[in-house]
């Protein structure tokens, strides 16, 4: 039996504004948001899991660097939500292009667009849910979000290359392609773009308070709020979740290993020179907040154990299990005078949830590497 395609498409669209000018105008903002999201995401990935050759070269300054880039990562991803939905609305009729496949090359192009759409929706969906610590899927978030990011970036670049003549012909209001479109659509399109801009503004303003403390009063939908926390600071992993109790810390000692190993009690730590720093906790999930920390410089602790000016550190938490129980600290972090083994937070002794009796606070680093309940420090 031979199958012949009907000559007319089964679905046609009469609605307006599904044109290349609308797609270009929204697409370039979406492209920019995705580029920022990708760059800041890859940066975060390497800060969190640095390969050996990079570990000692990661800079500890500017101290607010990670707070800015990870705040941007989450904000650009949230801003991309209305942009992606609007972009897909603009090009939706092309899903029903007739005939569905004209040639092998056309088939390949359609497959690459399907990959682009899948990767884009997947990244925004998994990223947004991750900020809420919600993982309803059967795979590991970090490596999969990272892999699909490359899939998304690659298919986006490919898409721009394929569509380049159309993008160029519709890039400005006076481009030849734009001028060839019905003139009556102009004001309508402008209003559509204004609506999309309003949506981007709305989702940004109602969530960005989680990383920009000054905008916290506007926050409606963020998963964290700088005004809700213990000792003025939100908690990512509670002592209960980490299996740490007051009782388990009863005979706590800090062990510092190196050429001249030693142990210290909490009183011994308090007797060492104390320093006060103001540093933010900036979480990989996007929220951040600045706080005042008091404690002993990691540099001083390493030096007392015989670590030279090139010493790195390995920090081990007393928690029983956890992906970040053992944390490696590159040379520039370990030797930075701002890097503390903190004992106090905002003028009070650390609460159990913030890592009592001692925790790491270092500049320009993801929050998961600010190890809590530190029991052991090693010169590496």
């Amino acid at each position, binding site marked *: 039996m031979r199958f012949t395609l009907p000559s007319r498409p089964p679905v046609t669209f009469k609605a307006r504004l599904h044109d290349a000018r609308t797609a270009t105008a929204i697409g370039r903002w979406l492209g920019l948001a995705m580029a920022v999201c990708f760059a800041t995401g890859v940066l975060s990935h390497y800060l969190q899991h640095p390969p050996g050759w990079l570990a000692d070269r990661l800079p500890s300054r500017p101290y607010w660097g990670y707070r800015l880039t990870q705040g941007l990562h989450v904000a650009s991803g949230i801003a991309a939500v209305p942009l992606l939905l609007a972009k897909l609305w603009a090009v939706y009729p092309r899903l029903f292009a007739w005939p569905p496949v004209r040639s092998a090359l056309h088939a390949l192009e359609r497959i690459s667009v399907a990959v682009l*759409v*899948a990767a884009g929706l997947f990244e925004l969906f998994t990223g947004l849910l991750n900020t809420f610590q919600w993982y309803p899927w059967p*795979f590991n978030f970090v490596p999969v979000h990272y892999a699909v*990011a*490359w899939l998304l970036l690659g298919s986006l670049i490919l898409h721009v290359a394929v569509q380049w003549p159309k993008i160029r012909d519709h890039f400005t209001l006076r481009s030849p392609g734009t001028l060839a479109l019905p003139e009556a659509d102009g004001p309508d399109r402008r209003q559509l773009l204004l609506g999309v801009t309003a949506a*981007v503004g709305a989702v940004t303003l*109602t969530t960005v308070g989680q990383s920009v403390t000054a905008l916290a009063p506007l926050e*409606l*939908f963020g998963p964290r709020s700088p005004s809700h926390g213990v000792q003025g600071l*939100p908690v990512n992993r509670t002592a209960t979740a980490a299996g740490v109790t007051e009782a388990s810390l009863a005979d706590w000692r800090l062990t510092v290993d190196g050429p001249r190993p030693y142990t210290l009690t909490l009183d011994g730590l308090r007797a060492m020179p104390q320093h006060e720093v103001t540093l933010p906790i900036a979480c990989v999930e996007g929220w951040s907040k600045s706080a005042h920390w008091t404690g002993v410089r990691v540099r001083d602790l390493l030096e007392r154990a015989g670590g030279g000016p090139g010493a790195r550190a390995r920090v081990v938490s007393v928690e029983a299990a956890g992906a970040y129980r053992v944390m490696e600290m590159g040379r520039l972090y370990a030797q930075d005078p701002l890097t503390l083994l903190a004992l106090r937070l905002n003028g009070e002794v650390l609460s159990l949830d913030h890592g009592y009796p001692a925790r790491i606070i270092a500049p320009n680093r993801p929050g998961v590497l600010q190890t809590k309940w530190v029991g052991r420090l090693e010169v590496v």
Partner: protein
Amino acid sequence: MGFRYVLGGFGAACAAWGGWLLFSQPEPWRIAVWLGAAVVVHDGLVAPLVMALAVLVALAGLRLRGVVRAALAVAGSLTVIALPPLLRPAGVANPTVLPLDYPRNWLLAMAAIALLTVAHVGARAAARRVRRRH
């Protein structure tokens, strides 16, 4: 022309790298199912719903179309980003995660959008009436 091929080739290489990273994950087909489901849910459910709404917006007439569409775009986008905190199953023993009253905030946002839209339409109608009188 050559520049487009170089750019396209670079894009394809990045995508292939991502594909290889995905493939080296345990049970990559499970991830593929989620990727495919994202397209199916959007193209089969979300997009037709938005198209149906767009038909309603078109009925609103040229004069109101812009503002009604903007209001729906803002309300729809805010609802999408509010869905995770509204639907996330409880059970995190951490009071600093999801500390806000999200149902109340969502209602507040929707009410604010409705109010602003009505005020905007009303102000424009009043301005037109004043202009006609003079």
